[in-house]
């Protein structure tokens, strides 16, 4: 194959060309046991500390540990790093590191034309090739013509490099991911410090292991430097991000931090009740390690118990949160209904995955919007917010908690597998950016009525332990003001209306959604949740190409921002892009009587920027 590479500068040491790139995407792929997530994370941290903007996406196999070397067992980790603000891990990658034939096979299609493919050639044994369902020498296949293949004996090199650490061969070979990481560090001109620091803090106690990893990392790097293989090296300069301190977070980590923050801001303990489920389990896991923050995690026996204990915790005055995925939400709905009628604050985090039923548990999807907004018995409205990116999971949780407490209502926070497992830099908020969450507890027993509403439509939050506010709440319809059981027809209507009004009032707290691009015009792309980044990138690119297209992203999906109807009306065409068969589209149609165009995808995968761009082009050209 041929590629033309502009020589930006000459690498001093070996007179290697250094090409400067605005951004690059790299994917590490190997067997589940090969440590690809680890290599990817290290690359991410180094790039983050370097000052790039980054976005990452891991891709785990559905099986815990599929037979080694099989296609089902491939694990991958992708990092997009850049010198400007980016929103996605990238549709395709510039470089692919494949630790075995199966990893190469499943990932090759995502490598750009002219991209770099580094393979651990030691693993290309006949058996391994067979497991990957290759017949004959794969590199003879035509698809390899379009990429640059580098066959490196990574296993052998690693063994040699770490010899002096004294590790047994089996353990020594485990360092091969770090060796590969060293190569990629060299290729993209990254320093080793961050990873070296990590190695020593992680393996400090096991001197041999720490040494071996350090040796492997340096050897990989040196291999890049000394081998004549790579004619060119790349540089991606730091991005100019808003000033501040940053930290890389996955969506689930951010959600966990958001829970802790919300509780601290409210001055209350956090009770997180959850039943493990992919892809939400990490929130529970993260929080279970944060007990010093007055966090009580409760691994319930099922989702019903998780929800019921959340209601109980809310009654006693905790910031009560439960997290799950779609099937778990289905089970919680009865309990959520109880929270709605009790008018107690709580958060239900739904990290969506492929459905229906058990569906595609490890894959992403946005098909729980209807369930969130409309999936309960009776007239049972609740606010719903959707996180738009990994870091936004923090803010979505904090914002949701603020609304929950203000309006005395459960709030559903939608995340998804893509956002939850992906990572990006999170600008750590300052204390000033985190005003307290004010909760209002009644103080005068003489005036106290359990269902006497304030200006927001909220009832008081009287906490057990406070003398004089003993009261009883329950799932039966309750009388306005007193909260006594009431079967009175007019009262039921009133309470249904008041609960609906309260949720509608939340619209007053929702900022006017920002339209990216022209405030009016030909085409407005509307999104919600985790598709934000991809669509924003596509719209940016389309606009860079001079196209008249704007983007509006909804964070609150229920209620919708008051100005939304008016904004939608300003565009000739509205396109709703979502990872389902048209759930937001349906809500918009019903609410605003508009007939948007739609882009649906239910493939367990996020959109690609190119797909959105193509759809935009298609629409714009059709409009001419």
């Amino acid at each position, binding site marked *: 194959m041929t590629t033309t590479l502009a020589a930006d500068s000459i690498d001093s040491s070996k007179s290697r060309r250094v090409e400067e790139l605005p951004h690059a995407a790299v994917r590490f792929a190997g067997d589940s046991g090969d440590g690809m997530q680890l290599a990817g994370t290290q690359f991410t941290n180094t790039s983050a500390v370097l000052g790039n903007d980054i976005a990452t996406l891991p891709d785990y196999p559905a099986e815990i540990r599929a037979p080694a070397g099989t296609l089902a067992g491939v694990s991958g980790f992708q990092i997009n790093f850049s010198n400007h603000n980016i929103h996605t891990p990238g549709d395709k990658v510039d470089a692919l590191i494949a630790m075995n034939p199966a990893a190469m096979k499943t990932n090759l299609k995502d490598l750009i034309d002219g991209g770099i493919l580094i393979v651990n050639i030691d693993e290309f044994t006949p058996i391994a090739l067979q497991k990957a369902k290759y017949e004959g020498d794969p590199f003879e296949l035509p698809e390899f013509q379009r990429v640059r293949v580098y066959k490196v004996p990574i296993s052998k090199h690693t063994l040699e490099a770490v010899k002096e650490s004294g590790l047994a061969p089996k353990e020594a070979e485990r360092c091969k991911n770090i060796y590969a990481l060293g190569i990629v560090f060299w290729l993209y001109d990254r320093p080793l410090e961050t990873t070296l620091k990590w190695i020593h803090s992680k393996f400090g106690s096991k001197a041999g292991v720490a040494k071996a990893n350090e040796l492997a990392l340096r050897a990989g790097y040196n291999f890049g430097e000394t081998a004549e293989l790579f004619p060119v090296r790349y540089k991606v300069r730091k991005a100019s991000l808003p000033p*501040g301190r940053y930290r890389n977070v996955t969506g689930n980590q951010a959600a966990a931090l958001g829970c802790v923050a919300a509780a601290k801001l409210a001055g209350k303990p956090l009770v997180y009740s959850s039943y493990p489920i992919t892809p939400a389990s990490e929130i529970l896991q993260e929080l279970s390690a944060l007990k010093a923050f007055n966090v009580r995690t409760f691994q319930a026996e099922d989702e019903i118990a998780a929800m019921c204990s959340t209601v109980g915790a809310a009654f006693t005055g905790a910031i009560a949160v439960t997290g799950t995925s779609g099937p778990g939400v289905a089970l919680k709905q009865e309990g959520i209904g109880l929270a709605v009628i009790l008018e107690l604050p709580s958060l239900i985090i739904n990290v969506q995955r492929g459905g229906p039923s058990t569906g595609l548990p490890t894959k992403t999807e946005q098909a729980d919007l209807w369930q969130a907004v409309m999936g309960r018995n009776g007239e049972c409205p609740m606010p719903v917010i959707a996180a738009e990116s990994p870091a936004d999971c923090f803010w979505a949780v904090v914002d949701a908690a603020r609304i929950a407490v203000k309006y005395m209502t459960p709030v559903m926070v939608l995340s998804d597998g893509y956002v939850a497992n992906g990572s990006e830099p999170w600008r750590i908020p300052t204390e000033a950016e985190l005003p307290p969450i004010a909760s209002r507890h009644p103080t005068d027993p003489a005036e106290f009525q359990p269902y006497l509403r304030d200006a927001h439509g909220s009832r008081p939050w009287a906490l057990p332990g406070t003398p004089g506010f003993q009261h009883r709440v329950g799932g039966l319809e309750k009388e306005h003001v007193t909260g006594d059981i009431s079967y009175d027809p007019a009262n039921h209507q009133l309470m249904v209306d008041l609960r609906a009004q309260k949720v509608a009032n939340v619209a007053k707290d929702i900022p006017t959604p920002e339209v990216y691009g022209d405030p009016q015009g030909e085409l407005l792309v509307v999104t919600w949740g985790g598709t934000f980044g991809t669509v924003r990138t596509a719209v940016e690119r389309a606009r860079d190409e001079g196209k008249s297209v704007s983007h509006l992203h909804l964070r609150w999906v229920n209620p919708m921002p008051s100005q939304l109807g008016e904004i939608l009306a300003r565009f000739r065409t509205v396109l709703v892009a979502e990872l389902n068969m048209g759930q937001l589209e349906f809500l918009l149609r019903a609410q605003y009587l508009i007939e948007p165009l739609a882009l649906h995808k239910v493939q367990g995968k996020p959109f690609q920027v190119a797909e959105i761009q193509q759809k935009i082009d298609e629409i714009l050209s059709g409009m001419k």
Partner: protein
Amino acid sequence: MSTAELPTLKPKDYKSDQEVRWCPGCGDYSILLQLQKVCADLRLKKENTVFVSGIGCSSRFPYYMETYAVHGIHGRAPAIATRRNVNLKIILFNNRIYGLTKGQYSPTSELGKKTKSSPMGTVDYPMHPLCIAIGAEATFVARSVDVDVKHLQETLRRAALHRGTAYVEVYQDCNVFNHDAFAFATERSVRDDNLLYLEHGKPMIFGKERNKGIRLNGTTPEVVQLGAGVTADDLLIHDEKAPEPTLAYLLSRMRYPEFPEPVGVFRAVEQPTYDDMVMEQVRAAEAKHGQGDLMKLFNSGETWTVN
């Protein structure tokens, strides 16, 4: 429930302003009254007491208590709380029927019972709540009868004072749909012959004449007549504090008419409660890492600064 406090309260101080709406003659009334007495007796602070229920006639209970209370959703069983030894008290109102839904059989209904939903008799073997509670290793397990007000009161009092999960089954008469299901345990003329009042450290003697007892035969109990060579020394001695729940289990299996049914405290052992262990971890974590500082947490791990 909270611990004892000074100001004297009367049973009626624990009555809420809600009109009680059970059927006339329902056993629930007695349980309510005894519980209000126990609350007064123990001087429980109203504001530190929370009643929680599911859905059912019995589940109206919380509405009638002048405490904090939640009337929740149906059947979210506390079996797991039992296993975890959460510091709460569970009172099962066993009336062997679904009352509120008007008379279908319930999990405790007898095999073969004819009800609205089992016109030919049930084919479900009944569950024995205390067997399950003991199977789940509840730390306090007891039984009483709605109309035996003194015994009921004492049993509830003991439960209230237990630290950890207390599980109390009360035989409760559903006057409307299953009247006299527990006649053997409530009718004055026969109940002393049909019930075994458990007393810690005492031999298991029962009967109006207190002339019958329970003896162990291998791992199974048998009813024996006292006298004619059989003395109290041959009988099983009740040990509610036995660390192994086997004796309690054996007692929970004794059923009328083959046996007198035991009432009173089957088991009462001390074990760290879930709540205590949770809070211990919080405190241990705080001791180790210092009381969590949000900004420190945010800034932990790999961070970098952009100027």
